[in-house]
């Protein structure tokens, strides 16, 4: 009775076994296999980071816009001969008649003093300083927005010294900056994506060319083109997926680190929590890298076989 061997029990490096071994006719632990995994991992890391940055910028701009567009401020200036309380009540009455307003809250003198404190210092809360009264208005974002021009006119008409700050100027500036940031981040994402595709394509082609003699040998021992192509494709699919998953894992770690740093500081941009659809987008990165590698490998090997007899 012949003892059946455990084939392929040759010692291979741990790194190669973890990230490269594919049991393929293509060399698994060779320099091209590991290089391809590392190249794909690096490019997927960069692509995932860029995608994450795009999502963070989108999240931040939506957050700024939502916060600003969902709030209004009514400013009531002290006017000689006018009772401040009557001015405030008249403004609140005008607000209550306007649809689409969720809440209207008069800020206390302490709240107003806290707002002014960065400009005028800690001693501003003196009784003799004529502070304007402020009403913080929150809009119902689920309802149609109110006609701000009509509301401004109604407030001015309600009492002298009452005026509406719709933050429109500030909102326009923020929107402009946000749109520019978004455009830039999408442009960077497009460049990184194209670069990733190009590098994965070249790396796959180089890996295949370096092992051209294996394709030739299979051809000469009677393997059909489809068998050779499927062996090569499986090899590059596994290499691509391993590299992609490695890159994605590194980028998720980077996101975690950035999230801690950015959310604990007072930076303008905070990292969004990863939503299911965000994770889906990120998971597509290694899948795309593997697909590019597989398609390139198939096209290259079929073209090479087509030149053989």
């Amino acid at each position, binding site marked *: 009775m*012949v003892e*059946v061997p455990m*084939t*392929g029990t040759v010692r291979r490096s741990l790194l190669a076994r973890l990230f490269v071994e594919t049991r393929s006719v293509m060399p698994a632990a060779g320099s091209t296999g590991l290089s391809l995994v590392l190249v794909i991992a690096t490019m997927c890391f960069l692509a995932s980071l860029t995608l994450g940055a795009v999502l963070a910028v989108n999240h931040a701009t939506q957050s700024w816009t939502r916060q600003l567009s969902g709030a209004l401020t009514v400013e009531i200036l002290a006017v000689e001969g006018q009772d401040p309380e009557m001015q405030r009540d008249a403004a609140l009455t005008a607000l209550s008649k306007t649809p689409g307003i969720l809440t209207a809250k008069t800020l206390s003198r302490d709240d107003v003093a806290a707002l002014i404190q960065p400009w005028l210092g800690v001693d501003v809360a003196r009784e003799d300083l004529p502070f304007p009264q402020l009403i913080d208005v929150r809009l119902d974002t689920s309802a149609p927005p109110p006609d701000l021009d009509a509301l401004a006119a109604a407030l001015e008409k309600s009492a002298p010294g009452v005026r509406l700050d719709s933050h429109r100027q500030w909102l326009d500036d923020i929107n402009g900056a946000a749109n520019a940031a978004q455009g830039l981040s999408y442009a960077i994402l497009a460049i990184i994506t194209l670069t990733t595709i190009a590098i994965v394509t070249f790396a796959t082609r180089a890996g295949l060319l370096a092992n051209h003699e*294996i394709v030739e040998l*299979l051809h000469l*021992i009677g393997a*059909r083109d489809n068998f050779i192509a499927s062996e090569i494709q499986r090899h590059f699919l596994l290499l691509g997926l391993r590299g992609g998953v490695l890159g994605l894992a590194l980028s998720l770690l980077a996101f975690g680190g950035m999230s801690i740093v950015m959310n604990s500081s007072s930076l303008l941009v905070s990292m969004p929590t990863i939503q299911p659809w965000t994770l889906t987008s990120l998971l597509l990165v290694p899948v795309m890298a593997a697909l590019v590698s597989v398609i390139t490998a198939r096209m290259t090997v079929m073209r090479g076989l087509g030149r053989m007899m």
Partner: protein
Amino acid sequence: MIRFENVGLRYESGPEVLRDVTFTLERGSFHFLTGPSGAGKTSLLRLMFLDHKPSRGLITMFDRPIATLARHELPDIRRQIGVVFQDFRLIAHLTAYENVALPLRARGKSEDSYRADVIELLQWVGMGERLDALPSTLSGGEKQRVAIARAVMGRPRLLIADEPTGNVDAEMGNRLLHLFVELNRLGTSILIATHDRELIASNPAPALVLHKGEVEIHG
């Protein structure tokens, strides 16, 4: 079984390396192919294992004219030809067992169906103890025997060996020759390309002698 009629070969626009080559290899025959370096032995072998098309002439393999076959029919012809390459062409990251099993794997067979046959064949060539060895750990003679085992694994009707004793000592050369003779007795046609006159003398058989691209049959 195999017939070359007025076959000529030139690479691209270069000179003709084979001219009017005509010969027939009968079923179960044993031939040597010899001639000086540059005479065209490798080119002739490439035509025989369907690595290259002739520039002119007619090649018939196993009674089928190659020129009339569609490309997808050629693998079936190649599977009837076993080749022992001069440089072995063993896949470096596959074990001896995996290298020998390659022709059957390429035919889509499952490992369960061929495992015992591969082991038996490796034992027949004296490599039963080195099943798991990588080519880089094998000596020249061991590589040659693994290459021979791979070439005969698919039970070819024709075995072509290019300088099979070129990398081994005389004793190993004789052992390899005995392997070929035994295979020939089992019905496989054998064509051995060699410079080794002692090898040719030790087993009298017809020889195709190539000289300046033309072939003569001796013996």
